[in-house]
């Protein structure tokens, strides 16, 4: 039965694809101003839909639903590009004799993406407190002052961020 449900789902996605793929792609092309990105994202949107357990009869407004998924994927793409650019900018500033090996570079880039994804799941202030403590090396009183929160809240935020880090990264 599960297989049949799965098959039905695939069929319904297939019909959604036939009905709305050209529309979605032109929407994305307007947004992204890049033909290949638009084609990729339109494709990814349907792949996402195929993997999601959402039954088709619950999709009342397919175009709106597709647009929401596509928007999320586009945001991910932009974020990833921006992180990649940050990394390239950083690399350009590193003197050649300090430049990390290709393997180290791959690890750093992947870690950056992972940590970023993890941080996006936290409330903005928790995220900010974590970045200030971990990467700007501000003291706890400085963080408290900067964010306008108590020292106890700083500890709570940092604990929460670290705990979340462990759940996601290790």
């Amino acid at each position, binding site marked *: 039965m599960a297989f049949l449900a799965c098959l039905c789902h695939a069929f319904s996605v297939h019909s959604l694809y036939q009905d709305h793929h050209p529309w979605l792609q032109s929407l994305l092309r307007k947004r992204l101003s890049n033909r290949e990105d638009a084609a990729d994202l339109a494709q990814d949107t349907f792949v996402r839909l195929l993997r999601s357990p959402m039954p088709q009869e619950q999709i009342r407004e397919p175009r709106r639903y597709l647009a929401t998924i596509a928007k999320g994927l586009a945001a991910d793409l932009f974020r990833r590009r921006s992180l990649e650019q940050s990394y390239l900018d950083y690399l350009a*500033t590193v003197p050649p004799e300090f430049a990390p090996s290709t393997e180290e570079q791959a690890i750093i880039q992947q*870690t950056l993406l992972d940590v970023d994804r993890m941080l996006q799941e936290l409330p903005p202030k928790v995220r900010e407190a974590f970045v200030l403590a971990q990467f700007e090396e501000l003291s706890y009183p400085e963080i408290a002052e900067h964010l306008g929160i108590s020292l106890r809240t700083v500890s709570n935020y940092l*604990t929460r961020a670290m705990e979340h880090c462990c759940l996601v990264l290790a």
Partner: protein
Amino acid sequence: MRPVDDIERLALHEAAAWHVRLRDPSAPDNARQAWQQWHAADPAHQRAWQRVQSVSAQLATLPPSLASQALGKPASRTRRTVMRSLVIGLGAGTTAWMGWQGLPWQQWQATHRTGTGERLDISLPDGSLLALDTSSSVDVDFNDRERLLRLHSGRILISTHSDSQGRPFSVQTPQGRVLALGTRFMVRLDDSGQSHVQVEEKAVRVLPAAADPQELRAGEQTWFTADATRSATRADPFGTSWHEGGVVAVDIALGELIAELSRYRKGYLGCSPEVAQLKVSGAFPIDDTDRALAALISRFPLQLRSHTRYWVRVEARNPQP
């Protein structure tokens, strides 16, 4: 299985809390003992701690400048404002300009200069602190690729601040470059055409124009020319005392001390050859060299010979009847 998950989850929360607590330098001394008790109390605690340590190590692989720029909000802005309020004031010897209105602060350029006996503390646009010693001149050139200081004369002391954009910080001298690796350090142009570098905190990389780079750690000093670097030696622990307004001499030749004091004084200040090798010690104010000289002759068998305020020589005290 559920209760086990809860135990693991609680242990993880506690481990994270311990991690946060022990990272705080103001944590009480007994915190570490309390942590040891907690750690030893349960294998679940040990597993959770292991997990926190491994994530912590993973986070440490990210270069801080990259991570704070890429992951954070522009958080250092407040820090900058705080730092700026510490600035003693831009002296008359400072000229700064913005290319045109609305140019981002990253494009900051300025020239700072001090006259004889003047000192100047400046907060740079990224939050780094720059102090100029007497008779010094430095260009500040911050652009979107790097934070560069060009030292033309004298001596500067720098405390770098991590940059939201991860741009490297370096000091250019006629002989080469000194690259900061997150640090407090001092660069001086010697009269002999060498650059002197002394590191107070962390490290710098010395990049002579035409010789191999050399890394210098906290507490070390070196001299370099365009094509050679001396091997590092232990730095003078009082090397930055000028920033506090004094020169600290510990058993040094009088000639050396006088040469140092003369940098802060207009006109001629010297000593006669017969006393140049006399060993002297003490702390001497540089903002008031008259007082420094008075302190010197009160403690050592010396006297001053002067023609007006602008010509002073330290000599051996004549045996007075």
